[in-house]
C-alpha cells in the first residue's frame, strides 16, 4: 500500500491544472449557476492532454493508464469548478470496453480523442437510481433493436454523439447504443427508436456494475477536488474576514468547526485515492465503490454546508466560489446513487464483508 504519486502522475495533474485554471468560470458579472451545457472547448483540451482515454487498455484504443490517473484529472476538474461529462464519459468507455464486441470497442479511440461524446443513459424519471432498466424497453426487430420509453435525467444528452441506454430486454437489462440522440434538455424519449445492442444482454449486468463502480470513483475525485478547494478557502476567509474588530479566526467555535472540515477532507482523500487503486485492479469491487461513495457523500455534505455557514451571506451568492463548489459536491452526491442508496447496498452485503480489510496481500 503506497499513496505516493509518481512524477508522471504529477505531470498529468499539472497539465490538467493548467488548462483548468484557464477554464475556471469567472465570478463577476452574471455568473452562471446550476448545471451547465457541455463545453466542447474544454473537452477538446482534456483530450489533448490525454485525459479522456486514461483507464482503457491500449489494446482497445485507450492510453493504458489506470483509474488513479483518471481520478487525479477529476480532482483538478473539481478543484477548478469545471462541470464536465468526465465521469459519465468514463462510465460509457468502461461499458464499451467491458461489454462491446471487438468492432464496437473501436468507439474507445473516438472517446479518447474527444471525437465522440458518449454518454450513459441510465436514470428513468421519478425513479431511484438503479442499475436495472424498468420502464425503457428494448425489442428485437430483425437484426437490430428498437427502444421505447423515457430516460431522464441524462446530463449532456443534448451534446452526445452516442448514448448508451440501459433497457429492459425480456427479463434482463441490456445496454444499447443510440447514435445522434434527440434530447429535450436532459430528457431522452425513445419511441421505436433504432438501437444497437452493446455486446450481449447476458454480459450486460456485470459490465454495468463495473462501469458504475469506476464512475463512482471518478466522480468522487471531482468531489474531492471541490472539497480540497473549499476547505482552505474557508480557512483563508476566517483569517482575513474581520467582524467585531478582529478576524473571524479569533472565534474558537469557528476554528474548531474548520478543523472538523479538515478531518472530513483528509478521510475523503484517503478513501478516493484508495478507491482508485482498488477499482483499477478490480472493477467489480462494489463494496469499496459504495464505501467511497458513502465517505465522500458524508464528507461532502459536511464540508459543503459548513463552508457556506462559515462564510456567512456571501457563501450563498454566485459571486463567490464556495457556493459553486458546494453545488458541485451536492450534484455529485445525487449521481450514481446517493449516500442512502449506497448504505442500503452495503447493508445487504454485511454478512459477506467480515472484518473490514484494506491491506491486500
Amino acid at each position: 500500500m503506497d499513496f505516493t504519486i509518481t512524477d508522471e502522475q504529477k505531470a498529468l495533474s499539472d497539465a490538467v491544472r493548467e488548462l483548468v485554471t484557464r477554464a475556471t468560470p469567472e465570478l463577476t458579472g452574471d455568473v452562471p449557476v446550476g448545471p451547465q451545457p457541455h463545453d466542447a472547448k474544454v473537452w477538446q483540451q482534456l483530450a489533448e492532454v490525454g485525459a479522456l482515454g486514461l483507464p482503457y487498455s491500449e489494446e482497445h484504443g485507450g492510453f493504458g493508464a489506470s483509474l488513479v490517473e483518471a481520478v487525479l484529472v477529476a480532482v483538478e476538474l473539481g478543484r477548478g469548478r469545471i462541470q464536465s461529462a468526465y465521469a459519465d464519459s468514463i462510465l460509457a468507455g468502461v461499458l464499451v470496453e467491458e461489454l462491446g464486441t471487438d468492432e464496437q470497442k473501436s468507439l474507445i479511440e473516438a472517446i479518447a480523442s474527444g471525437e465522440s461524446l458518449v454518454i450513459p443513459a441510465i436514470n428513468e424519471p421519478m425513479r431511484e437510481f438503479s442499475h436495472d432498466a424498468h420502464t425503457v424497453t428494448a425489442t428485437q426487430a430483425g437484426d437490430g433493436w428498437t427502444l421505447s420509453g423515457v430516460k431522464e435525467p441524462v446530463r449532456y444528452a443534448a451534446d452526445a454523439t452516442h448514448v448508451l441506454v440501459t433497457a429492459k430486454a425480456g427479463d434482463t437489462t441490456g445496454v444499447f447504443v443510440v447514435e445522434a440522440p434527440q434530447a429535450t434538455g436532459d430528457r431522452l424519449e425513445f419511441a421505436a427508436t433504432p438501437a444497437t445492442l452493446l455486446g450481449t444482454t447476458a454480459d450486460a449486468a456485470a459490465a454495468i456494475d463495473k462501469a458504475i463502480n469506476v464512475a463512482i470513483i471518478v466522480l468522487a475525485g471531482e468531489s474531492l477536488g471541490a472539497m480540497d478547494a473549499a476547505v482552505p478557502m474557508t480557512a483563508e476567509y476566517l483569517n482575513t474576514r474581520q467582524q467585531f474588530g478582529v478576524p473571524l479566526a479569533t472565534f474558537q467555535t469557528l476554528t474548531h468547526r474548520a478543523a472538523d472540515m479538515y478531518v472530513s477532507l483528509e478521510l475523503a482523500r484517503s478513501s478516493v485515492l484508495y478507491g482508485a487503486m482498488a477499482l483499477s485492479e478490480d472493477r467489480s469491487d462494489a463494496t469499496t465503490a459504495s464505501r467511497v461513495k458513502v465517505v465522500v457523500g458524508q464528507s461532502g455534505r459536511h464540508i459543503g454546508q459548513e463552508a457556506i455557514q462559515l462564510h456567512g451571506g456571501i457563501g450563498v451568492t454566485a459571486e463567490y466560489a464556495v457556493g459553486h463548489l458546494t453545488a458541485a459536491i451536492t450534484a455529485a452526491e445525487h449521481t450514481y446513487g446517493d449516500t442512502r442508496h449506497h448504505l442500503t447496498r452495503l447493508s445487504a452485503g454485511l454478512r459477506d464483508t467480515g472484518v473490514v480489510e484494506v491491506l491486500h496481500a
Partner: protein
Amino acid sequence: MQLRLSAEDAAFQQRMREFFTTQVPKEVIEANTSGGKGSDLAPELVRLSMKTLNAAGLAVPNWPVEWGGQDWTTLQKHIWASEMELAGVPSPLAFNAKMIGPVIAAFGSQELKERFLAPTANLDIWWCQGFSEPNAGSDLAGLKTTAVRDGDNYVINGQKTWTTLGQFADWMFILVRTDPNAPKKQMGISMLLLDMKTPGVTVRPIKLMDGQHEVNEVFFDNVVVPANQLVGEENKGWTYAKFLLGNERAGVAPVGAIKLHLSRAKDYAAQVQTETGTLLDDPLIAARIAELEAAVMALELTVLRVAGTSKDGKPDPASSILKLRGSEIQQDVIELVMDIAGPASLTWPAVEGTSQADWTAGTTPTYLNFRKATIYGGSSEVQRSIIASANLGLKG
C-alpha cells in the same frame, strides 16, 4: 396544564383556517408553495396577498390596535401564523409587518405614524432594510454609512448590502452613523426613512446560487433625505434597531411552513419508484421523515410554551432557541426533499417537456438558497452566544 383549545380559540382557529383556505387568491398560494420557497414570488402577488389580508385585518395583528393591530393572545397569534403558513399563504412582507411598522408605531412621531402606517400595512409602500454593510454583518453596530445633517436634510453616503427584495422596494429604513465621535460604536447611529427613488441611490443585484435575484447592494452617493424622515431621536437608532431585531426574531420559527413542506415530502416520496415500492417505504427515508415530524412537534410545542414569555420587544432568549432550531429543521426538511428527488434533483431550472414531477427541479436551488436560513436574521452562531449568555449565564 390544558391540552385542548378553549372554545373561543378553537373557533378562532376555524375562522383562520377558513379564511386562508378560501379567501386568498389561488394563484398566490400556488406560486408561493411551488418549490418550497416563496422568495421568487412575483411582486404583484406579494402585494395582492398582503392587501387581501389587510382588508380582513389579518396583515399586521402584532401592531397596536389603533394602527390596525389585533388584541389577540400569544396563542392566537401563533394560530394565525401557523394556519397562514399551513395554507400556503405568504406571510405579510416582514420588512413592513414585523420590522418598520412596529418601530414607527412605537418610536415614530405622530406625523410619521399618520403618513406611513396605513400604506405600510396595505403594502402600498414596499419597504426594504438598510442595515448590513460589507464589513458589518453579525457585527451590525460596526456600520460605516454616514448621514450628515445639512439644514432640514440629512445627506447619506456609503453602502448597504444583503438588501432583500430591494429591487421592488419603494422605501428603505436605514441605519446610518450620525455621530462618528460617539464614545461607543452603538451610540452614534440613527434610523432614517428614505424613498428609493431619491437621486444618488443605486441598487446592484447580487445573484444567489439558486440563480435568483433576491438580495442587493445599495449605494448612497450624497443622497438627500428630509430630516422629518428621522425615526425618533437622532443617535438613538441602535435602540430602535434592537427593538426591530427582537420583533424579527420573535415567533420566527416557521412552524406552519415546515409542517406543510414535511407533509408534502411524504407525497413526494410516494412518487419516487424503487425496486420494491416507493421511497416512502424506504426505511432510511421514512425514519428521516418520522424524525423530522417529531422534531417539528417539539419545535411547535416550544413555540407555544415559551412564546408568551417575550416582553417589550427585547431580544428574548427563547426566541433564539426557536430561530436556531427552526432554521435547522427547515433546512433539514428542504435537504430531505432534495434527497427524495434524487437523480431528478440534478436538472434545474426546469425545461419544458420534462417527464419528471414539477417539484423536483426546485429542490437543489432551494437547498442552496436556504443555507441562508442559519445565516441571516442573526446567524446560528449569534443565537448560540445569546443563549449561552442569557439562558445559561455563561460568562464567556
